[in-house]
């Protein structure tokens, strides 16, 4: 049974890393696109949302084209930095981050956009630079929405299957995430392994939801 915990720990490592990346990237993109309007900003907004509606295997294919050994980014990474992303847990992080990104991005845009602009203006008149306005006023007032989006992103990253399989494959101990492990256990008729993994994953998800619900309840 301890063997069955390996995919769980790997999945948590991938999901936590991917979530931290999309938290920063999602909030940063939401801030820039919400605050500045420039030519092409609506197109970029659509691109940021696209992974949410695209089939995961299609997204996985695009990632393969970009990051694969003969891909335009993948070949540059291997030639200049000696980094290979396919069939690695880092590749799985990229796959999970890609599908989870829109969840943080959209939640952050809605929350940051919902902050009363009079409060942001008051901060400016009181001598605050834009960084102070963002970190001391906008983000604290938007944190609930951003947090809810981040929890959804984490859940999505944990459950990622299609894109991960395309770019990282299913190497036990290295890239076999829990969703892939469950699928393969069912395919191989290993029902007790599959049951154990499913129950474990469900328990982890319930705990995460309960913890985030508790955090959201606390008032300022």
């Amino acid at each position, binding site marked *: 049974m301890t063997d069955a915990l390996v995919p769980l720990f790997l999945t948590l490592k991938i999901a936590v890393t991917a979530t931290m990346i999309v938290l920063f990237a999602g909030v940063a993109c939401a801030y820039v696109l919400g605050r500045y309007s420039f030519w092409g900003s609506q197109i970029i907004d659509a691109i940021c949302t696209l992974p949410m509606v695209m089939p995961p295997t299609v997204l996985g294919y695009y990632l393969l084209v970009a990051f694969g050994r003969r891909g335009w980014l993948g070949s540059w990474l291997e030639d200049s930095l000696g980094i290979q992303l396919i069939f690695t847990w880092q590749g799985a992080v990229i796959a999970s981050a890609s599908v989870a990104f829109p969840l943080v991005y959209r939640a952050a845009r809605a929350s940051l956009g919902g902050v*009363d602009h*009079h*409060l942001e*203006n*008051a*901060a*400016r*008149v*009181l*001598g*605050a*630079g834009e*960084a*102070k306005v963002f*970190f*001391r*006023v906008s983000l*604290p*007032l938007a944190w609930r929405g951003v947090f809810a989006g981040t929890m959804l992103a984490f859940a999505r990253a944990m459950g990622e299957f299609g894109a991960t399989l395309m770019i990282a494959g299913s190497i036990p101990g290295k890239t076999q995430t829990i969703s892939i492990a469950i699928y393969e256990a069912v395919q191989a008729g290993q029902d007790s392994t599959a049951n154990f993994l499913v129950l474990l994953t469900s328990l982890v998800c319930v705990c995460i939801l309960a913890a985030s619900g508790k955090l959201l309840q606390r008032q*300022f």
Partner: protein
Amino acid sequence: MKLDVQMRMSLKAEDRLFQLDVAFQSAKNLIVIFGPSGAGKSVTFQAIAGLIEPDQGRIVLDGRVLFDSASGVNLAARERNVGYVFQDYALFPHLTVARNVAFPMQHCIWNGDAGAAAVQEFLRKFDLADLGASYPRQLSGGQRQRVALARALIRKPDILLLDEPLAALDPVLRGKTRGELLKLQQSFAVPMVVITHDPADVEAFAEDLIVFDMGKVARQISVDATNRSAQLRDVLGLD
């Protein structure tokens, strides 16, 4: 203190176009901008504070050029040292009264305890010493206004803009607050510009009265201390 404002601005709201074209100067300590809703009073304040940029014009405060379209000067709001009390006070709901008042004093992006003693002294001056740990949602309208005033004045601004400061208060409190604002102006020696559409505020405050109408300055009157009511009678349409 001399305030010199000249500006032109076109504002689009849905399918309507609002043209603002105002020019006024004053060296008085109590200036009242009077006019109906939608006359462009708040927009003028936002331009003086640096929150919006006029299409053309020049705004000079005490010899300091805050905005000049001809020479490309447009100081950021944080550099203008203009105090602004918004109509709804714009208190930060996630910060205590003490942290709201201390906000302008904390220079970094993290929560620091800057000059806690100075902040406490200020809270005492505004009769807020017992409310330092309270949040804005727990305060009455009058208390919120005092927090907004304390927060605006703690940086010793060159001028204080008050956008309809008494509109949210009940009539009894309005009378009391008028007296407090006059005392505040004297004790802090800070020139005040007050937006109002209440003639009683005009009577109480105005040394210079600027009447706005449909985006333009309709009249400007200097009111001297003697016989204020008579001087203001025909402007305000009082009996």
